[in-house]
């Protein structure tokens, strides 16, 4: 009987050497004449253990990590094919506290199944949501999504059901479903992990959206920095067509849904929904003023549901287990779970899916184990490059859209970037302006010009040239950008800048250090 061994194919695992590990396992098994079955799964999301090798035993899957190619002969010697003891062993994967304490709804299958095996997907409750949805009217599906309390996971947290309802109610011969997979925020990778680790759940979620609003064409707008996800999605879409889960007659319902992946081209602004639509139409990714809303006039002028990857990927479980089940999780108006991403200078970086309401401190210390460098954590940036820097004094804030906004923060897409006490917050503030200048689409003046002026003002402030005056100018500039920009790029860039200035003013008043060379 051949032993089943799992080695992740996820980009993160590959970046740490999973490819070489997989090769070494195959070679060593051959050398020893042992029959194995190698499965390239997604990542479990505990990156301090990647590459994580799992062996299926009678008692469950046993974990070893982080494994390097040179560890393989030793693992065979230790009898890891029977779950034998080894210095890299962690016992049963399901019992690893980091994983055991999570509430994985959207990520239920990631790391467990073979991402490209439709049989595996079906065996793990896949496509049950779509089957339920096909028995309902469009309005009933929209109602279920509304009742679940699911809000847009891309960052803006707009209720998904309301968006869908608008598209459902707008008459048109052609409607579109567009998935925003332009995950450009630093400190985020949950979209990528779903696309690489469980692509069918995204395809199923988009198909359900198509059935709900009467759209027959879907597009996944994927950033070109994700070549692994591109390959996986295309292979999964081909398999879904093959098995009639996509195409002219979805599961024999007589209803059509087609799906295609389109690549972005390295423009951060295309994560903004109207820029993304422009880009999909083959144009420069400049934002469109709203109204009209994309739900009424979106892609090619037609009613369009545009949601983030995690939003769509959360729909199948809502339609499978019911809105009430999903709504049980969470707190206040933030229902369900969010896959938080612990990143940057953190000891145990990874993906932690928990119900809303968990605090930053629990995430940073109970899961993250403190900083990677071992130094005190000084600041965390939550919600991407446009999110505020949060000082240690506010780590007890609950991660809930409304509660977190009260401290000036933004939960956003759930990305948390950790900085230790060596961080120069004035440099981070400057970077925020510089990033905005690089990525501005140029449509509106506060963003296009304000960001460049912002870099200059911060430089003068840090250099100590009339600091009181510069600070006043900077605050005034931030106010102009906040209220005068057309979209969130210019409108929220002041958030990291001002939070750095307000919480860490000492960094802006350092005597100027002249670089040695």
């Amino acid at each position, binding site marked *: 009987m051949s032993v089943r061994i799992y080695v992740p194919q996820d980009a993160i695992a590959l970046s740490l050497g999973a490819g070489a590990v997989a090769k070494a396992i195959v070679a060593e098994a051959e050398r020893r004449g042992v029959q194995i079955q190698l499965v390239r799964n997604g990542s479990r999301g505990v990156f301090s253990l990647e590459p994580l090798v799992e062996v299926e035993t009678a008692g469950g899957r046993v974990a070893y990590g982080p494994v390097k190619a040179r560890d393989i002969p030793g693992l065979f010697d230790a009898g890891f094919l029977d779950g034998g003891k080894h210095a890299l062993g962690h016992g049963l994967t399901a019992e690893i506290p980091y994983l055991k304490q999570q509430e994985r709804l959207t990520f239920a299958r990631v790391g467990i199944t073979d991402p490209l095996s439709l049989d595996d997907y079906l065996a793990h409750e896949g496509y049950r949501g779509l089957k339920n949805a096909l028995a309902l009217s469009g309005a009933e599906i929209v109602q279920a999504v509304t009742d679940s309390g699911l809000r847009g996971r891309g960052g803006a947290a707009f209720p998904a059901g309301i968006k869908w309802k608008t598209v459902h109610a707008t008459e048109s011969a052609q409607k579109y479903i567009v998935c925003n997979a332009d995950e450009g925020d630093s400190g985020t990778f949950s979209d990528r992990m779903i696309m690489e680790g469980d692509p069918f759940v995204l395809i199923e979620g988009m198909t359900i959206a198509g059935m709900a609003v009467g759209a027959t064409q879907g597009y996944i707008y994927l950033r070109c920095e994700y070549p692994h996800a591109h390959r996986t999605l295309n292979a999964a879409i081909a398999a879904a067509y093959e098995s009639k889960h996509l195409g002219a007659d979805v599961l024999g319902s007589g209803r059509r849904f087609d799906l295609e992946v389109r690549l972005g081209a390295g423009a951060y602004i295309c994560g903004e929904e109207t820029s993304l639509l422009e880009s999909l139409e083959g144009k420069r*990714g400049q934002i469109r003023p709203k109204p009209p809303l994309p739900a009424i006039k979106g892609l090619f002028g037609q009613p369009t549901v545009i949601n983030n990857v995690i939003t769509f990927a959360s729909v199948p479980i809502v339609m499978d287990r019911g809105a009430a089940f999903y709504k049980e999780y969470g707190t206040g108006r933030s229902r369900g779970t969010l896959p938080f991403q612990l990143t*940057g200078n953190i000891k145990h970086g990874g993906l932690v899916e928990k119900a809303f309401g968990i605090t930053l401190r629990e995430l940073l210390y109970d899961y993250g184990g403190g900083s990677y460098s071992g130094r005190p954590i000084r600041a965390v940036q939550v919600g991407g490059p446009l999110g505020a820097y949060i000082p240690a004094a506010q780590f007890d804030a609950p991660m809930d859209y409304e509660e977190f906004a009260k401290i000036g923060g933004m939960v956003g897409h759930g990305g948390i970037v950790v900085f230790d006490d060596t961080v120069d917050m004035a440099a981070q503030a400057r970077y925020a302006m510089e990033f905005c200048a690089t990525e501005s689409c140029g449509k509106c003046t506060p963003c296009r010009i304000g960001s460049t002026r912002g870099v200059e003002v911060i430089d003068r402030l840090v250099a100590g040239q009339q600091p009181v005056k510069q600070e006043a100018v900077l605050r005034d500039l931030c106010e102009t950008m906040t209220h005068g920009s057309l979209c969130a790029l210019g409108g929220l860039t002041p958030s990291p800048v001002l939070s750095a200035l307000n919480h860490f003013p000492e960094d802006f008043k350092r005597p100027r250090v002249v670089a040695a060379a």
Partner: protein
Amino acid sequence: MKGQVQEQPLRPMPAARPLAAAERAKVLEVIVRLRALPGALLPVLHGVQDALGYVPPGAVTLIASELNLTRAEVHGVITFYHYFRSTKPGKQVLQLCRAEACQSLGATALEAHVKQKLGVDFHGTTADGRYTLEPVYCLGNCACGPSLMLDGELHGRVDAESFDELVGGAS
């Protein structure tokens, strides 16, 4: 860089030379294959860059006329997106992450080392034509930075030493 605004690199499009016959054939093949797609311009530009490594300025007129667009529209799209390039890259493209999560783990120091080691700035190609260095804002490997991507291969936890190992004897 402190104390002055970092100049946004101006990358004027090089003068358009007529396409060589082989290049022209490749561009046409891409156009014929993709032109029927709604919003075909980005897929076509990706196709051309995949085939040739860049979008030659000489291809702009051809793409524009075949897709029924103006040259200005095509030029505008090529120059809007960081990913499309108008000059031939080195043998391998090295994308170095500049975003916050990588910064928190020393990306700024790594960036200085990489530039010094390769002897080029961002968008530059090494003298031996082996590497083109590009900045990138997030590779989605934010818990295992600093990160870089070499010809589509992602590398995490990169430091000066492992970088030198990766590029071997290049200088």
